């Protein structure tokens, strides 16, 4: 019900209590007064919508006079264009069918062109024979409620826009990471005449740039250089060191391919760049391949990196020790140790990062270790670099969550049946 305030003609001077006074005021409130100044709009229309009666409240809201409305306008004339369409397609048919309709949101149009959001209820009054006579309608001002709803909608749109923006940013970040990651590793290893090369990169989290790296590239018409290493840490900072390391080693190798000289250059560059503040360094093995006849001469040097493993055609597997080589980048001058070997048909040189040997295996999570790697290598059929990498990839996968670091593998082998790749002529 619409609550009614004290009437204007409230009696004065009576000795009644305030409650009595209120009751008196209520009783003396005429039905007409109640209709006209109710806090909601009332109107009655003929069945064709022509307005027969309308209360003062609604006229005030609409900014119109009784004379211009009664008998001259229809209910639908009070609605906005959108409101009229909704009235004709939903409101009127439902009212016609049910005889009443309640709480429908319609927009009314005020005389000055403004919009009055309203909740409208109507009931059809019939005669004793059930024939419709007129429609009684109440109109509640829904401005506050509508603006609340619109605020909710607006906030939802803002939230959706923010979510869309976050997803777009995330996609852009992943694309940037993928591009950056691909600049840290060769897309494919180049063919080396008389050799087979294979690599694998196992990442423990696709979202974080890894710190492992490797490369294989031609030096001149007869020699090839390779390196594999591990930068401390992960993420963008590690990736920056990886990038600096990769391009320094490539340039250093072209200038002077001697492995110790290349690592010394890298050490100078990293130490100069990262000497102050947060220490950044890497471990790496750098080497040069020189095919001679049916064999390949290898000279490599290590800076703090686990030793390379040489798998021989006859089933032997031995580390190629490079003791004393220091982490690259922590001291202004650093010792590096070089080692040489010759690969014959069926031999493979395996480089790896310590994700492999530091993996934890079994229920006791014991270190996999150097010995186990050598034993595993001895058990492999020595049929080529790709098979060695495939077997080790299977081993890495079998570690499951015992493998908690990125791992890079690079295998360089001399096949038993030497292929003659069409594009194998070095330039």
């Amino acid at each position: 019900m619409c609550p009614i305030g004290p009437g204007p003609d409230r009696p004065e001077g009576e000795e009644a209590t305030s409650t009595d006074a209120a009751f008196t005021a209520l009783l003396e409130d005429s039905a007409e007064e109640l209709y006209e100044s109710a806090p909601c709009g009332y109107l009655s229309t003929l069945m064709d919508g022509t307005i027969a009666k309308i209360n003062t409240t609604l006229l005030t809201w609409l900014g119109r006079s009784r004379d211009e409305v009664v008998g001259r306008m229809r209910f639908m004339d009070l609605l906005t264009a959108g409101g009229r369409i909704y009235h004709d397609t939903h409101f009127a048919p439902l009212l016609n069918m049910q005889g009443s309709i309640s709480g429908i949101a319609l927009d009314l149009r005020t005389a000055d062109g403004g919009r009055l959001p309203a909740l409208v209820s109507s009931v059809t009054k019939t005669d004793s024979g059930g024939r419709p006579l007129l429609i009684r309608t109440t109109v509640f001002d829904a401005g506050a409620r509508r603006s609340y709803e619109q605020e909710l909608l607006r906030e939802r749109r803002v939230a959706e826009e923010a979510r869309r923006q976050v997803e777009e940013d995330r996609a852009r970040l992943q694309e940037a990471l993928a591009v950056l990651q691909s600049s840290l590793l060769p897309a494919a290893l180049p063919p080396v005449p008389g050799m087979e090369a294979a690599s694998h990169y196992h990442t423990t989290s696709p979202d974080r740039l890894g710190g492992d790296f490797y490369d294989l590239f031609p030096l001149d018409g007869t020699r090839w250089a390779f390196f594999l290493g591990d930068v401390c840490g992960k993420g963008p900072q590690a990736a920056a060191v990886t990038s600096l390391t990769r391009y320094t080693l490539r340039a250093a190798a072209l200038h002077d391919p001697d492995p110790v000289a290349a690592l010394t250059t890298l050490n100078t560059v990293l130490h100069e760049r990262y000497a102050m503040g947060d220490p950044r360094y890497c471990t790496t093995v750098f080497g040069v391949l020189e095919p001679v006849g049916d064999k390949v001469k290898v000279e490599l040097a290590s800076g703090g990196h686990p030793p390379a493993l040489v798998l021989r055609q006859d089933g032997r597997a031995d580390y190629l020790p490079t003791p004393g080589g220091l982490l690259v980048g922590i001291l202004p001058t650093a010792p590096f140790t070089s080692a040489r070997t010759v690969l014959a048909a069926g031999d493979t040189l395996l480089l790896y990062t310590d994700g492999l040997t530091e993996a934890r295996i079994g229920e006791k999570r014991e270190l996999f270790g150097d010995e186990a790697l050598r034993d595993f290598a001895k058990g492999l059929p020595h049929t080529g670099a790709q098979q060695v990498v495939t077997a080790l990839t299977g081993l890495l996968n079998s570690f499951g969550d015992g493998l908690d670091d990125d791992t890079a593998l690079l295998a360089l082998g001399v096949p038993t049946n030497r292929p003659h790749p069409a594009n194998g002529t070095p330039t």
Partner: protein
Amino acid sequence: MSPLTTTVRDTGTGPVLLVAGELDYSTAAELRRVVTGIDLGPGRLLVLDLGGLDFCDSSGITALIVARNHATAARADIALVSVPGPVLRILRVTGLDQVFRLEPGAGTRNRAVGD
């Protein structure tokens, strides 16, 4: 999992930092903070007693290098004592056994070392 604990003690030759627990990505920053907060003078010896270390990864190695840089900057020396086998293995592979003075240590975690 055992969290990292660090205890600093002063001896006649310089501070001794007892490092116990796991030194990994999540705890290395704590060791770096503690060690760089240690006041060192020229000629002093900073001893890191690693006898209680259960685990050390590459982040931990970085923290040890930070400790070395901190000592070097103060023209002090640094020594690692009671280095556990697995950590010693990493130090050998990375060549850091040539960079750090390594000492067998006192055999127990709590005895004073470095003097």
